[in-house]
């Protein structure tokens, strides 16, 4: 199940960042659509319940705020709310926004309007997103496109979308009122028949966060943890409990952090991001980790980084700005795109970064501006040969980790050369050069190629991290022996 969830998460994230995001491609027509008609939907238990709940939730608000104008435009609403005071988009603010949507629906019903509608900001394409090169981060700008979700729509599917959206808003509202965290998975399993698949929920939750201009965490929604972390850190919770990063040799799921938590990283000298779970697991079981675990933290998001992992990393690095952060990704366009997401943010979740410009107290940039890419790079593809008689053998083994680019790889690399971080004279001239070399060679490589070297990946990493890796102090040796 975790594997399935992980695939969904990866697929959704990658799809959003890779290519034009077509709504219909992601949301297949539900099996029951042929039997859904407007009158039936209006009478259906789910839809009826949703509207009934909306009415109940807003009964008091309605009495107090009769005549509130209908919510028809995201920008319009945001502008209307704006007063002399700068907006603090906190939990109460989000609750008020959701309730104003419900009030709009109730008003429309009472006024017997022919259509109910909710406006969402679009996250597909790149309109309204910009690369802030001064800060090296992808963020939102003015001009985000919007779209209306209406009921009854022109099709049964449109009516279904409206129902899905209202139900998700209701669940988020309940979570905020009760101040409990729900995962996207939780939301999906409330009504799997209605939502059809996890990606539907994932998409709408992030669309709502973007529409409201807040982080998903402000909706009290999190993705199920998928990142793994291990290393010499300790998190102290307000309730007295403690998380020790070295407790489990397999690594821990990336913890959700609260503002009341404190973290001790006093012995950490480096942080290493690893693209693949398999590599993470082989590292924490290797001699490399026995030698260096007392002075480092390693982490994997299993491909494209999820929001929880990026929040955790942002937390670690903001409390230890002197500690270098390194990344090892495959030598292929996806590897560089993953690297870019860690360092600069992603287009699909650009609104998560824009909170930096709003200056909200709880805000935290999710990019890692000091992230350093240690490999895999083009010069690792063919180590210098020492003697001719071993060349052939080495070459044979060396090519096991090398593959030719697919057509998709080549198209992706070419598109990336046009993107802000990679443009000529952009902030990542070196990455741009590596993409071009990749196209010249028509070769990609997995980080497993380092296993073919003497000592394997762990040994190579020790050399790569050498400026930061120092022999552990004698006292720590004793402590580690006792723990073992």
């Amino acid at each position: 199940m975790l594997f399935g969830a992980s695939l969904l998460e990866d697929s959704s994230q990658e799809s959003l960042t890779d290519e034009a995001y077509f709504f219909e491609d992601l949301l297949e027509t539900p099996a029951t659509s042929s039997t859904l008609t407007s009158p039936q939907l209006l009478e259906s238990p789910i839809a009826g319940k949703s509207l009934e709940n909306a009415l109940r939730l807003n009964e008091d608000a309605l009495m107090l705020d009769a005549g509130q104008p209908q919510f028809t435009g995201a920008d319009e609403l945001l502008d209307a709310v704006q007063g002399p005071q700068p907006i603090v988009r906190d939990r109460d603010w989000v609750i008020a926004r959701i309730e104003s949507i419900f009030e709009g629906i109730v008003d429309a019903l009472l006024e017997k309007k022919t259509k109910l509608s909710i406006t969402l900001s679009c996250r597909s394409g790149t309109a309204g997103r910009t690369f802030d090169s001064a800060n090296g981060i992808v963020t939102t700008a003015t001009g985000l496109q919007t779209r209306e979700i209406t009921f009854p729509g022109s099709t049964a599917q449109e009516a279904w979308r409206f129902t899905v959206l209202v139900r998700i808003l209701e669940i988020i509202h309940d979570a905020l009122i009760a101040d409990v965290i729900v995962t996207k998975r939780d939301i999906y399993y409330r009504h799997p028949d209605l939502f059809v698949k996890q990606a539907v929920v994932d998409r709408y939750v992030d669309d709502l966060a973007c529409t409201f201009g807040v982080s998903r965490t402000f909706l009290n929604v999190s993705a199920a943890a998928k990142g793994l972390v291990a290393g010499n850190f300790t998190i102290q919770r307000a309730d007295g409990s403690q998380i020790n990063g070295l407790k489990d040799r397999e690594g821990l799921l990336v913890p959700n952090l609260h503002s009341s938590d404190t973290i001790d990283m006093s012995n950490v000298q480096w942080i290493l991001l690893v693209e693949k779970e398999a590599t993470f697991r082989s590292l924490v079981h290797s001699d490399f980790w026995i030698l260096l675990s007392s002075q480092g933290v390693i982490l994997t998001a299993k491909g494209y980084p999820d929001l929880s992992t990026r929040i955790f990393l942002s937390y670690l690095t903001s409390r230890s700005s002197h500690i270098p952060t390194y990344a090892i990704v495959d030598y292929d366009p996806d590897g560089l795109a993953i690297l870019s997401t860690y360092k600069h943010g992603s287009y699909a979740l650009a609104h998560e970064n824009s909170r930096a410009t709003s200056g909200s107290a709880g805000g935290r940039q999710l990019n890692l501006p000091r992230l350093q890419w240690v490999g895999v790079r083009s010069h690792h593809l063919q180590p210098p040969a020492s003697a001719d008689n071993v060349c052939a053998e080495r070459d044979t083994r060396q090519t096991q980790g090398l593959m030719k680019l697919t057509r998709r790889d080549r198209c992706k690399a070419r598109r990336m050369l046009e993107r802000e971080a990679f443009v000529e004279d952009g902030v990542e001239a070196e990455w741009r050069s590596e993409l071009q070399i990749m196209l010249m060679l028509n070769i990609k490589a997995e980080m497993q190629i380092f296993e073919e070297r003497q000592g394997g990946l762990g040994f190579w990493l020790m050399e790569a991290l050498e400026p930061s890796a120092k022999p552990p102090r004698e006292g720590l040796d004793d402590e580690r022996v006792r723990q073992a």
Partner: protein
Amino acid sequence: MSKQYLTLHTIDNAHPTDIFALAPTKTALLSASGSSTIRIYATNAPDFPLTQKLEGAHKLGVHHLVTSKDGQRAASAGFEGKVKIWGVEGNQEKTESGTGGIWKAVGEISDSNKPGEIWAVALSADGAYLASTTYDGRINVWDLSAEGMPRIREYETKGSFGMCVDLSADGRFTASGHENGSVYVFNNDTGRMLHSLAGLVKPVRAVAFSPASKLLAAAGDARIIALYDVASGEQVANLSGHAGWVFSLGWSDTGEYLLSGSHDAKAKIWSIDTRTCVATHSHGDKPLWAVKWLPKTTRSEMFAVAGGTGAISFYREAAG
């Protein structure tokens, strides 16, 4: 037997990033890199000065650049998928002032060219035809003298990425090298495949006809240079010695010597007569993407090499 070559000059920072291609004329060397600008250096002045920059030639950088043997025309291929044709105006032969004429864009390949389709390019000796390879292994030929530069021919192979292409100086043959190690020779008069050459089982990254069009050299990830007889298709030699993938090949003016450049930054010169390596030069520690003999205009023949360092180095045969 060995041969001595002297380092004449190195242009450090000739380009801000990897230089992927060199294309000589009698008086100048055109160079292309990951930068969007093509830079042209005079080769008839002692310090090889920069004489022209073709700014913004290809927005995403340039991966291939060729000149015709007559030096009147050039073609460049960019990572964004376009191919541009350049022509030179002014006196090519002027030597005193160091100017070799001004290069200008004269056209672009648009007929039958889908984005990302064109990879390697070659020009005929008179600059009238352009040959190029595609990702799916086809070789297309365009007539640059006709209105609109139409595509006039398409050779099909077995679908393996066409990584390199060359046209023989006599105009009769086209050769292509592919990802799967295949090398093909086509007869341009009949429009048919003449040979399918075996011998290299790894990506072929360079093919080059000898000046008299009698031999074809091919090389790539197998790290050997295969020599084939063009008429019979037989392999007549294997040149071994490179420790890295071979990226570039160039024939000397008379066809006596073959120049090769490799991933491990070595340039080697091979005697065709003795089938041996007669000189090796190391050019730093980054790949040598391009090595070229310059047209012989003095008693000593010169060659140029460039790659990941962003520098261009010129070597001259030692007098003797």
